[in-house]
């Protein structure tokens, strides 16, 4: 078993584990961060999405060894106090039903807004298409991403 060091939600972290252990399970079990969710384990559903050096990645198929020396951000670190514009928009539009997919939805949406602060409705739909929700919150997800983007624009101008 090797030791891997990376930055986790802004703080240095090291972990002894097999290098091929998917980051999802390293986060959830030894590191105790259960916000990232397991849905499919094969990179289809998007529930385990985290940011690796700012890019959205599916942590169920991302080996811990690939994170060494990099920066990992999870839903627990999306904002210090739950006030990321997406988190606010999600609450304002009452997006969650069971809520289980929402950490993945939010992390995936955050990567879109980081790259494209003013996405069109089509760009939002295109981007968010790859995260599944069984409860059927898609219509509200679309609206909430647009609302968060609009508010961020407002703050900038």
């Amino acid at each position, binding site marked *: 078993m090797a030791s891997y060091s990376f930055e986790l939600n802004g703080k240095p972290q090291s972990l002894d584990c097999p290098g091929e252990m998917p980051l999802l399970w390293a986060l959830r079990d030894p590191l105790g961060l259960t916000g990232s969710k*397991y849905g499919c384990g094969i990179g289809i559903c998007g*529930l385990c999405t985290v940011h690796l050096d700012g890019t959205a990645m599916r942590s169920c198929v991302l080996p811990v060894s690939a994170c060494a020396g990099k920066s990992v951000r999870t839903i627990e670190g999306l904002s210090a106090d739950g006030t990321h514009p997406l988190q606010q928009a999600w609450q304002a539009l*009452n997006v969650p039903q*069971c809520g*289980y997919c929402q950490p993945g939805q939010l992390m995936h949406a955050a990567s879109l807004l980081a790259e494209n602060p003013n996405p069109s409705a089509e760009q939002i739909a*295109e981007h968010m298409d790859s995260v*599944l929700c*069984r409860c059927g919150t898609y219509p509200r997800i679309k609206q909430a991403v647009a609302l968060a983007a609009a508010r961020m624009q407002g703050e900038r101008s």
Partner: protein
Amino acid sequence: MNARKLDRRSFLRLTSVAGSGLMLGFAVGCERSGGSSAAPPAPALTSLSSFVSIDAQGRIQIIHKKTEMGQGVRTLAMLVAAEELDAQLDQISVINPSPSAEYSDMQTGGSYSARYIYNAMRPHLAAIRRMLQQAAAQRWKVPVSECSTELGEVVNARDGSRVGYGELAEAAAKLDVPQDAPLKAVADFRVLGRSHAHQHNREMVTGAAKYGLDQRVDGMLYACLVRAPVVGGTVRSYDDSDCAQVPGFVRSVQISGTGINTFPEYIRDGVAMIASNSWAAMQAAERLQVDWELGVNQQFASSGYMDQLRAMAEGEGLVFRQEGELQLALEDADQVLEARYSGPFMAHAPMEPMNCVAVCSQSRCEVWVPCHAQNRLLDGIKQLTGLDEQAILIHTCLIGGSFGRRLQVDYALEAVLVAKAIGKPVQLLWSRQEDMKFGCLRSPYVQKMRGAVKDGRITAFGQQIACSSVWQLREPQMLVDGLDYTVIMPAKILPYAVQNLRLSQAITALPVPQGWWRASYPTIHHTVQECWMDELIHAAGGDPFEMRLDLLADDATPLDFAWQEGWGKDLIDRKRLSRVLRELRGKCGWARPKAAGEGRGLACSIYSDTYIAQVVELTVIDGQLQLQRVVCAVDCGQVLNPDNVLAQIEGGVIFGLSGALYGQISFANGRVEQSNFNDYRLLTLKQTPSIEVHLLDSDAGVSGVGEPGAHPIMAATCNAVFDACGQRIRDLPIASQLGVA
């Protein structure tokens, strides 16, 4: 065993009785729930009843028998409590008790919770508010009539002085329980009837919410179970020598299952792989070598049982509703129609796979579980362990979706067996593949439909249902003269006045664990009946709205259809359904011209006093279906939290569309062929049409919306395909016949 045979429907009936008999004045005997928003009980908690406690700071705790799984029942309990107690929302919290003699009938389903919360909790809360007023009256030595309530305080009408509920709780708890405390008038509502977001949203968007899979207990190990791939299969021998190379692997242990007919659940034979983390347990499971005795079901395959159902659909069946003379009407008709409809097994596939944490010794058993059939689980644990109720503690976790799946408690009983075998706390995790392969499925079906048209009118409607019965499989004593009322009732309530009707049932018990799938049989019968109405209306040259309204015109009195004895009846109010259809016609733009390839389809249904109609708009171009728009009109009686009703209908529509387009679990060699979301597909965000929901103002009582959104949508979609391209979809899923964009 002496377990009560409680199924979903019988529970509903029992609850309504229990609801009027809620008793005050018990000590609170529940442990805190494992749910993340449950605050630890404050030390000076005064128990005002078995369902409400108030601490000295005025924090109100509702002990709630209904389980949150995304349908909003936790928030609804808070809203109803805030309303009827005249308290502030933020002073209220909700926990689930462990089931017991005091907290019995814990089961959440049947789109019944809103009705239960509103009708059963309010008198109880009103009595508590009255006791708080009386306590204040004693303190101030004024008449109760001069003590009003406002936002968590009692107000003295004489001098305007105020005292908080927290200060009054102890004195109030000593008072006799008033039997005549008045309920608040709806006109005075300040909380209910307005939209409120879920109270747990913040935890959900920050990753703080703790689902079953997020539970951690001191000293906990992680387990996967390698299960018999075929129902009834057993372990001949196994070899775990390769597993030792997996870092974190602890040990393996063989688990003996039950039979497919065992009540309450079928548990597969298997080998549990124990490890220090989830991934190691999964890795070890992959390396385990098992020699299976596959048993009698190893040839079980879709082709076989679908043929069996097809043959059953051709028989006479047991008639459960007959009016006029179907045969004569067919002979006398201008046009006679006949067709077969079919649909496959379907899985629930909630995003959180099955899981449970358990610790079990000789003397006690404790579980943390995302489950909403807690009493069924309690019965199962008693049966497996021989422990009595006092030695069993069930913590209900937040649930990552269920749709009926977690009304079966197989996964939790497995965890108990594993915990018992290893003598340590353990979390059993189902991989997604296992969740797909070992689900409790919705029945497949074949239905033979007949109908007649004469002089432009529909004169006959025949339906022979062939399907697998959940009850026949495991609770055959629930059948009455061979009839399964859970199967027949959704068909029996056909609301249309067709003069010659014959509805009949042929059931079997396929050797597959089965369960309730967003109500199950309504998703079958309403689909087939509404598609068949569309065919008959088309043959009669009528308009789908006009002709339905015509067949509902005779609406003088609601029809009632009896369940089996002691189970009450379903009321069908044609007036309400007509109103919903008219509202929908007004909103959906039915008469707008259509371009080539555009289609619109209508369907409606009634479920548990909720009336719903839906229009689907789609295009079929070059054999490719694309959804465009769904419009719904809903009469669910008095609306308590409108935005949540909209969310539930939206969610139901999307769930039903996934089923209609893709939903299919098939078998070959006794094994489920699907394994993950790549071959059991869900609708994605881009495919989702725009969804409009129109709620009707209604004088009717509160009824539920968790399931009905998913009921007409499959038929409306098939009918729209016909409208677009002339192709009748009688065999689901649609994607087996058309491309889907």
